[in-house]
């Protein structure tokens, strides 16, 4: 359940938006009321940017954002008023406290699906307002009477100095957020958004990433709260109810989710429209709801997306503009291209080809499955499955629909927990081991429908394969290219190498992954597997949906990487020709049980297999690249 595509490389446009608002706010002669409304809008924009990280980039929801604004505002103000702490210390403690509460709530809610998170955050928002109104906290927070907030030193409580402060914070927040979203951490969030199971299999700690995103979202809310407390000079529970949480959500939607800069525009529209331009209560409420609906239906990408489209249209109408921007993109690309030293030097890259493979020599199998049983409720998907895969071999799994092939792969990669039996990867049991840990042992898999991030470009998709090994540091990622340039260059070189290996044309590498054709997407997924320290590659139906020619070419690629890097490959396929071409051994599954095992040609010749399995599709099996069964799309 996602809200739409996120945008890439948002730093420049978002900074332009933030800077534009700053310049306009400072340069134009605003009347007091508009200046105040503008300042408040920017404050809410900061909270909306936080929500964008959670919603637009991580694919989660929160209908309690205003509650975290309240917590930040109240905590900081109470520390300043009651303990007399200096403002900077109060701010750090107040924002920190908000982060801690977010962490606590997050640790429970991130496990849940969207509906649950929505309900829990909505409820939490309601509860915070109730608590702020209530008796217990009244001595500290003033109950329904609210809390008078003393002015901030230096900037006072309103006017240009305050606007400068708020804009400065906005620009810093935009810079940090854009940097984070364009980094390895941001890419991991976006894989979580597009498919949590895939993210886990790629080695991402899904719950941790969701929590990181939730806490980041709430910290920005708290910062907005601090600024809000200063400009309003008064905190009352009324301003932070569910209604305001919905307003923040509306800012995000109207501005454009997954853009960082968009929510700023959304906040301006949502705050200034009813607060300043439309002063009749009913009309403004109707217009507000109607604008929100129109955006959702007609312009789901928000103002930011519209701006981008206008930009593309301008490029079409005035080609010189296009040349300019293309030149810039090329220059950027050149700066990171073709630096083979970076790859081999820091990450390993092609150097892995000469890695020693002690297991192969010691005779430890890459994968041993003993007596595996997987149950879904009462349904037994796999029972008593034994598979043994020699290190360095290519092992095929075949079987009709529903035989349990994908279930087997999921069990190996840790996505399903077996009810009985044991799985050992390179000699070590994976019982109770989380998917991302299994991934760290070198188990890399692909999925039947290519599990890539559709709104991320090809190169970035491949970089995700390195998440397990080259974990980005959150703090470095926040600082952006300044801090991550070296690592990014290494990742880039590594990804280029892997794309070379799977034969993706250079001209296709800067496209969004969703714009590639199916066979390319499958190659990208394999490349993502290759860049990590893959030792055992699990391929789920790499051939489904491919033409014969594409299949042959993919087979050649696989044989090539297998030979060059000594990978062990376990592959599910329906295409007998393909299997005969690449596999050393084969296991046949039917109704969740192993019914044959051995050298492919020999197994296929067995009467039992031929009768129960091949017999059905004898005709088809004759042809090269024939299909066994008919796997649904």
């Amino acid at each position, binding site marked *: *359940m*996602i809200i739409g595509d996120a945008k890439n490389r948002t730093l420049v446009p978002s900074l332009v938006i933030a800077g534009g608002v700053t310049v306009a706010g400072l340069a134009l002669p605003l009347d007091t009321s508009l200046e105040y409304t503008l300042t408040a809008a920017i404050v809410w924009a900061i909270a909306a940017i936080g929500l964008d990280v959670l*919603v637009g980039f991580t694919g989660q929801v929160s209908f309690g954002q205003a509650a975290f604004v309240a917590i930040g505002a109240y905590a900081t103000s109470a520390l300043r008023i009651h303990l007399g702490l200096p403002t900077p210390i109060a701010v750090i403690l107040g924002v920190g406290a908000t982060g801690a509460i977010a962490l606590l709530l997050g640790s429970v809610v991130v*496990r849940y699906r969207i509906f649950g998170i929505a*309900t829990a955050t909505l*409820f939490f928002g*309601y509860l915070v307002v109730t608590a702020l109104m209530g008796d217990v906290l009244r001595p500290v927070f003033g109950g329904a009477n609210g809390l008078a907030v003393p002015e901030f030193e230096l900037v006072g409580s309103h006017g240009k100095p305050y606007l400068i402060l708020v804009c400065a914070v906005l620009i810093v927040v935009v810079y940090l957020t854009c940097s984070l979203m364009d980094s390895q951490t941001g890419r991991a969030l976006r894989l979580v958004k597009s498919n949590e199971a895939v993210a886990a299999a790629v080695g991402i700690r899904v719950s941790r990433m969701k929590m990181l995103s939730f806490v980041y979202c709430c910290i920005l809310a708290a910062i907005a709260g601090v600024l809000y407390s200063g400009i309003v000079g008064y905190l009352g529970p009324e301003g932070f109810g569910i209604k305001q949480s919905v307003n923040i959500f509306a800012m995000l939607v109207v501005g454009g989710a997954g853009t960082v800069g968009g929510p700023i525009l959304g906040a301006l529209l949502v705050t200034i429209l009813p607060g300043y331009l439309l002063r009749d209560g009913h009309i403004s409420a109707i217009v507000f709801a*109607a604008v*929100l609906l129109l955006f959702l239906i007609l312009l789901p990408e928000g103002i930011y997306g519209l701006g981008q489209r206008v930009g593309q249209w301008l490029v079409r109408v005035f080609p010189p503009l296009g040349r300019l921007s293309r030149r810039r993109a090329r220059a950027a690309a050149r700066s990171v291209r073709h630096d083979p030293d970076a790859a081999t030097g820091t990450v390993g890259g092609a150097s892995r080809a000469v890695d020693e493979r002690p297991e192969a020599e010691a005779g430890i199998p890459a994968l041993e499955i003993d007596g595996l049983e997987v149950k879904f409720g009462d349904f037994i998907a796999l029972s008593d499955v034994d598979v043994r895969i020699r290190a360095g071999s290519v092992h095929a799994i075949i079987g009709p629909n529903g035989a349990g092939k994908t279930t087997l792969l999921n069990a190996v990669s840790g996505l399903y927990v077996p009810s009985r039996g044991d799985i050992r990867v390179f000699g070590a049991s994976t019982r109770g081991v989380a998917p991302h840990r299994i991934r760290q042992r070198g188990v890399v898999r692909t999925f039947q429908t290519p599990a890539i991030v559709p709104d991320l470009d090809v190169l970035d998709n491949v970089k995700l394969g390195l998440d397990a090994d080259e974990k980005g540091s959150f703090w470095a990622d926040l600082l952006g290219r300044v801090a991550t340039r070296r690592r990014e260059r290494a990742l880039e070189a590594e990804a280029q190498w892997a794309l070379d290996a799977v034969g993706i044309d250079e001209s296709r590498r800067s496209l969004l992954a969703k714009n590639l054709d199916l066979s390319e997407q499958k190659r990208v997924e394999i490349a993502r597997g290759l860049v990590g320290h893959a030792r055992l590659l699990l391929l789920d139906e790499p051939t489904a949906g491919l033409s014969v020619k594409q299949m042959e070419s993919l087979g050649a690629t696989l044989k090539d990487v297998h030979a060059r890097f000594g990978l062990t490959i376990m592959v599910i396929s329906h295409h007998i020709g393909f299997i005969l071409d690449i596999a050393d051994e084969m296991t046949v599954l039917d109704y969740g049980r192993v019914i044959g095992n051995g050298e492919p040609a020999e197994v296929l010749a067995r009467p039992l297999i031929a009768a129960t399995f091949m017999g059905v599709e004898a005709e088809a099996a004759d042809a090269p690249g024939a299909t066994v069964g008919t796997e649904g799309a």
Partner: protein
Amino acid sequence: MGLYISAAISGIAVGLLYGMIGFAIVMLYKSTGVANFAQGTLATLGAFVAWALVTDAGLPLLAAIPIALIASGMFGVIVYFVVIRPRASAGNLNITVRTLGLSLLLLAVMEWRWGALAPYRYPTIVQGDGIQIASVVLPAQTLLIAGVAAVIMVLLWALFRYTRAGLSFRALAEQPDTARLLGLRATRLSAATWGLSAILGTIVGVLLAPSAFLAPSMMESYLLFTFTGIVLGGLTSLPGALLGSVIVGIVSNVAIVAFSLEAGVLVVFAILLIVMAVRPQGLLGKQEAVRL
């Protein structure tokens, strides 16, 4: 003791109302994957329509209600075609937020049209003192709510069990992709589900308005508990929505009587968090296998 029994009984009555709203939300969620945040506002709108028919058109209440039910059913279908169906590919969260926007819009329109003199006293279908057993009072309205809830549950159960439309709905809910491949008319079915949701909403609105008084924001506090009930019940389980909501109703009312109003909310939230942590699939929900 009588106090707690009375509290539990009033909790059941409230819970049944939450539950019927929750039922409609789960129905839509199962068939379209969308959490309908406008369900409460649809209920209020339905109650307003019935009320307008009584006061403006001078109809007797028992004639106004069926007309309001039909009108709200049609309105539900219109909402589906105008708000939900265009660009349905935009993603479930987009559509979910659309329902939120729809809710705000309907609310704003009701505030504008009827807000000035709200809240209104709402005519009751049943009059009388209800039943008194020892110190426990069963108000007439509570009995009516329980009766209507029972009738509706039986009707819906029969609908899903024995009619073609009901079977199609279940197919759509269990396996949306397959159902579409098999040629089920998903659009028609989704539109019908929207209509049915709006009708259920109107029933709840008409039952609630006599005690809560008719005002545009009448259902606001209801939605929170309804969603909690749904999550407790397991998101995708229709009986679960009802069970979860009744639990929420009883627990919150007993906690309020035993401690305070704030405690009622707090206890319900604690239960929500505990169930989410311990049994993420909810009380009656099924554990969903990850589809890859």
